[in-house]
């Protein structure tokens, strides 16, 4: 290795160590940390308090299944509802913005401002959007929906315009030569041509928003995060763990459903229908455990 490069690397490592010590103070503060965690785990976290799955004492539960009056159910359903509405709202705004931002569909004088708008919406994390909307609408689900929608527009818009820029050139050129307008080209060529990816991104965004619902709930924007926040403030960590287990299970189910839907919209034979193991195991191991009919061979002469 070049001597100068070695010196630079050593210099960077030394600087990193120096800045780290400067930030955390003396390392003695770290001693006993693991045993503290063990005590915290035994005394406060474990076992989880599953009373979060029981009906709340007030208001009186009149539902057929008492479980549906529990904190876990109410919080999770509200989180899923917020995520669903925010994902759809975000998608409706992101789609035209992503068409404007795609350099193969729009002139540069439209694409650059559209990209700046998307970057601006993406640069603030949804928790900051939630705080801003709580100032406007007060605490609650409306602030949560608006925050999530704004973030969704920025994030989904970027994924979508990149998908659109990745489509094959021939259909776009044929459309241009025929004299199709930009709107026609976007609606009739670019969107259908990238539809599989757009739908895949949309489902991913829904998953992401469900997971993220716990975070924006922490600042009072509704959903299961609101309950998590309450239990954290009351130091009822065993209930927090129980709710986190519920969130984990719901996310796993949504992840699986999303994978099934995505495989259904992808070109025939391109994606194997997923199995439960594919959620946790690398593809090769999962395929070995659950062999499925292999990909049909694609026509050797596709449209492109």
């Amino acid at each position, binding site marked *: 290795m070049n001597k100068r490069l070695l010196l630079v690397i050593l210099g960077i490592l030394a600087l990193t160590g120096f800045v780290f010590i400067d930030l955390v103070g003396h390392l003695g503060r770290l001693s006993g940390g693991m045993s503290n965690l063990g005590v915290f785990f035994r005394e406060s976290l474990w076992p989880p308090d599953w009373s979060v799955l029981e009906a709340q004492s007030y208001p009186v539960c009149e539902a057929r299944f008492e479980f549906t009056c529990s904190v876990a159910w109410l919080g999770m359903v509200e989180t899923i509802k917020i995520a669903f509405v925010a994902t759809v709202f975000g998608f409706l705004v992101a789609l035209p913005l992503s068409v404007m931002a795609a350099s193969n569909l729009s002139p540069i004088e439209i694409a650059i401002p559209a990209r700046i708008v998307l970057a601006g919406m993406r640069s603030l994390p949804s928790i900051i959007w939630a705080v801003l909307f709580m100032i406007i609408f007060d605490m609650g689900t409306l602030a949560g929906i608006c925050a999530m929608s704004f973030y969704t527009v920025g994030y989904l818009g970027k994924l979508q315009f990149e998908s659109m820029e990745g489509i094959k050139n021939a259909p776009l050129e044929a459309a241009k030569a025929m*004299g199709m307008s930009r709107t026609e080209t976007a609606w009739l060529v670019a969107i259908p*041509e990238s539809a599989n990816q757009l739908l895949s991104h949309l489902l991913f965004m829904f998953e992401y928003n469900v997971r993220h619902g716990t975070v924006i709930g922490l600042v009072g924007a509704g959903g299961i995060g609101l309950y998590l926040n309450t239990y954290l403030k009351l130091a009822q960590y065993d209930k927090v763990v129980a709710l986190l287990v519920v969130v984990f299970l719901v996310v796993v189910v949504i992840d699986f459903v999303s994978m099934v839907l995505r495989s259904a919209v992808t070109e025939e034979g391109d994606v194997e229908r997923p199995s439960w193991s594919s959620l946790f195991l690398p593809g090769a191991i999962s395929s070995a455990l659950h062999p499925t009919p292999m990909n049909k061979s694609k026509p050797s002469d596709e449209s492109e």
Partner: protein
Amino acid sequence: MIVLEEVLVHLHDVAIGYDVPLIEDINIEVFAGDVIAVLGPSGIGKTTLLRTIAGLVRPLEGDVELAVPSRGGLGYIPQRLGLVGNLTVRNNVEMGLRVGLSKWYPPFFPVPAKQHHYAERAMEDLGILHLADQPVRILSGGQQRRVATAKTVVQRPKLVLADEFLGELDDDNVEVVMRTVRSAIEAQNSAMIMVEHHEELARQVANRVWRIADGQLIEEVVR
């Protein structure tokens, strides 16, 4: 009586290429009714010539004049066909009808029902009507070529530019496709410029041949 031939394309002192000229000093005219085959080895600039005429590439020098309507006047079948794989055969073919409508006709509205028979007729002529509701991506190469042809035929353009669109077709289908295209060209009094690798086939279907060699376009009279 003097009959003036309708000039659809006029290339005047044109040089084409990307940065470096591939073909220079092109001075040609295309008349209504012409079927022109462009011949030459790979990489010589045949596709670039078509793309330049289609307005997709700027000429390095000279002027390209097209006397065809900017909307729907030019039908272009690129080498890779330019079909939308996720849409059905019918949707792809109806795209050709759409450019016959106003530019302001909303793209999310279907093509008016009274025009559907044009698409049905073209698909029937080309033997793909039974595939109308299949997505294009699952079709074979030969079937996709017939879809691209049907899309261009229903468009009723004044000028058709086709890049090796007869490849992968068997003899019977070449005949069907060319018969359909020829009758569309005659009905519209339009013209066609086709890039073709098979010289024998090109000479059978074309009335003019342009050969590209050594950076020059040379016209050969066929019949």
